[in-house]
């Protein structure tokens, strides 16, 4: 972006700021470098500020009966942590999902609340169970969920260990889980291989019903989330969501 100002304008500037020692040609020569340098400094400042305020619950942070062990994952809307029980009653590992503190708007809180309600209604071996929920200091909502130790479907399918029979088997189990959800009148709306975990004994678990919605006869659903690549065609136009979309 080339700015052009006349020598008169530059001289006027120097006069305005009372600088009689700087020569106008120096300024004119330095214009572009100045622009680039300041751009760079401002970007770096932005990065440093972002790094300073990057939010992660530290190891040892206590939520109810549990203590944070480590971060498992970070998404756009939330972070997930591995936590362990510390009340001495028994050993237990859970996953705690925390809404990103930058996102404390009503809309995001409602999404989170919706997820909590959805998961509470679902009781199926192939769907991750919600155990509890609440708010931590600062009003940030969290969900305590069953911890599933395993790999995502995405990674499993990419590995060489997956036979055709395996795939069919897994697909069947996903369908069962989805059918259960539909039975509860709930759409997942974000089914994709990274939202499915293969746990111990190859148990399939669906995660992240975060943007699911309730099916309502009169509802015209419009997409406010969902990963573009896996959205069925209905998502691209304003159409009624139906059970068919998940399949």
């Amino acid at each position, binding site marked *: 972006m080339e*700015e052009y*100002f006349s020598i008169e*304008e*530059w001289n006027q*500037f120097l006069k*305005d*700021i*009372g*600088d009689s020692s*700087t020569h106008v040609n*120096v*300024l004119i020569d*330095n*214009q572009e*470098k*100045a*622009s680039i*340098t*300041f751009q760079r*400094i*401002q970007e*770096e*400042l*932005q990065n*440093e*500020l972002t790094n*300073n*305020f990057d*939010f992660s*619950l*530290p190891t*040892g*942070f*206590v939520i109810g009966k549990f203590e944070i062990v480590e971060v498992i994952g970070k998404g756009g809307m939330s972070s997930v942590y591995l936590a362990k029980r510390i009340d001495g009653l028994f050993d237990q590992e859970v996953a705690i999902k925390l809404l990103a*503190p930058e996102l404390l708007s009503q809309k995001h809180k409602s999404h989170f609340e919706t997820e909590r309600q959805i998961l509470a209604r679902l009781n199926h071996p192939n769907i991750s169970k919600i155990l509890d929920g609440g708010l*931590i*200091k*600062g009003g*940030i909502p969290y969900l305590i969920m069953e911890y599933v130790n395993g790999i995502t479907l995405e990674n499993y399918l990419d590995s060489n260990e997956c036979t055709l029979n395996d795939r069919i088997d897994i697909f069947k189990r996903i369908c069962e889980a989805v059918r259960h959800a539909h039975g509860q009148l709930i759409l997942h709306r974000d089914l994709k291989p990274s939202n499915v975990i293969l746990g111990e004994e190859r148990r399939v678990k669906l995660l992240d019903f975060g943007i699911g919605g309730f099916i309502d006869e009169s509802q015209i659903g419009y997409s406010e989330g969902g990963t573009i690549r896996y959205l069925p065609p209905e998502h691209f136009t304003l159409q009624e969501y139906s059970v068919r979309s998940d399949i």
Partner: protein
Amino acid sequence: MASKAIRQILINACDKKRTKKRGENEPLIPIEDVEETLVFTDQMADSLKNIDQLLKALEVKQPTYGKIIECRFFAGLTIEETAKVVGTSPSSVKRSWHMARTWLYSKLSA
């Protein structure tokens, strides 16, 4: 004025040693503690302090230029937003910002 406050916080943070760590069970940092928890690289701290010094000299003669740099650089406001704050036209802000940063650069690299 918010941009003045932001500039003050950033500059103060450059000099302070990090005295406060985020508390054991405190996920959020109260605004009063931001200066003590912010940590810049030495390079960034130097750049910020130098710019601030030059800005102080500039402000004495021409407070408007000072305000524009404060808005554009420290607070990250757009040309339009800065124009509203300062009370001039966007084209005037554009010219002033361009000239002022060229001057700052020339002084910093002298």
